[in-house]
């Protein structure tokens, strides 16, 4: 029987989407993805460090998601961990972004030809990185994703979720989201295979 296979994955290149949903206790929304979620090791560090995950919600979520999330090891993240293990206190700074760039370069050079990445982001700097320029990439910020989920009938309460997120924001002058961007031609993503 012919079966449609989508060679697609969700890439979360910054801490924003996870931390935003953790703040409103809706990390379960990531369970709507049937595709794998890719998070680079340095971003994993950022979303689980005590300052960002004081009550361990994100750590528990990662554990709960199991192999539905792939933690992508990068040289950047590896080097950072080595320094931590040596007792040094390296600056995290923009290492998450650099690690994602490293991963995006790997995907661009050696990724599967038909691979379709859906990048779920909040930090607008992501739009300037290589992951945003991958072939067949789709980009959605958290707000656009939630609205799309509601539009598709996957969740019933999109507007309420956005209100809950907005109510938690301390400073509207620091927007960390951009409207979702996408690129055409993505329908070539479906491969037919015989099972």
């Amino acid at each position, binding site marked *: 029987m012919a079966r449609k296979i989508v060679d*697609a994955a969700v890439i979360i290149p910054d801490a924003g989407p996870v931390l935003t949903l953790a703040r409103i206790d809706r990390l379960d929304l990531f369970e709507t993805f049937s595709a794998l979620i890719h998070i680079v090791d340095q971003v994993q560090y950022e979303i689980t460090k005590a300052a960002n995950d004081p009550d361990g919600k994100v750590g528990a979520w990662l554990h709960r998601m199991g192999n539905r999330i792939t933690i992508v090891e990068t040289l950047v993240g590896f080097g950072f961990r080595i320094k931590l293990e040596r007792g040094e206190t390296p600056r995290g700074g923009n290492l998450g972004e650099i690690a994602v760039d490293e991963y995006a370069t790997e995907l661009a050079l050696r990724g599967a030809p038909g691979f379709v990445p859906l990048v779920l982001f909040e930090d607008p700097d992501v739009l300037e990185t290589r992951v945003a320029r991958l072939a067949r990439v789709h980009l959605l910020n958290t707000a656009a994703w939630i609205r799309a989920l509601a539009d598709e009938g996957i969740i019933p309460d999109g507007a309420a979720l*956005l209100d809950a997120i907005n109510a938690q924001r301390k400073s509207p002058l620091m927007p960390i989201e951009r409207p979702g961007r*996408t690129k055409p031609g993505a329908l070539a993503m479906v491969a037919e295979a015989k099972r």
Partner: protein
Amino acid sequence: MTLAEMLDRLEGGRIGHAAAMRWLGIDSLNELVEIVHLNGRQMPGHRPMPVAPETRALLRRITQPLPGRR
């Protein structure tokens, strides 16, 4: 007034652009529109900026209802 309340009032037309811009401390209408959109809301009378059909098609293929809500 929280950001959510302000956005709700703006979207519903209960406050105007000028009041929203004063609340946000900005003086650019473009910036107001960007902030409203960034937060998933609409300017009064505007239609939602749709997610591209290709992206929605992808979402349909890689998304499933939440457990317990099937």
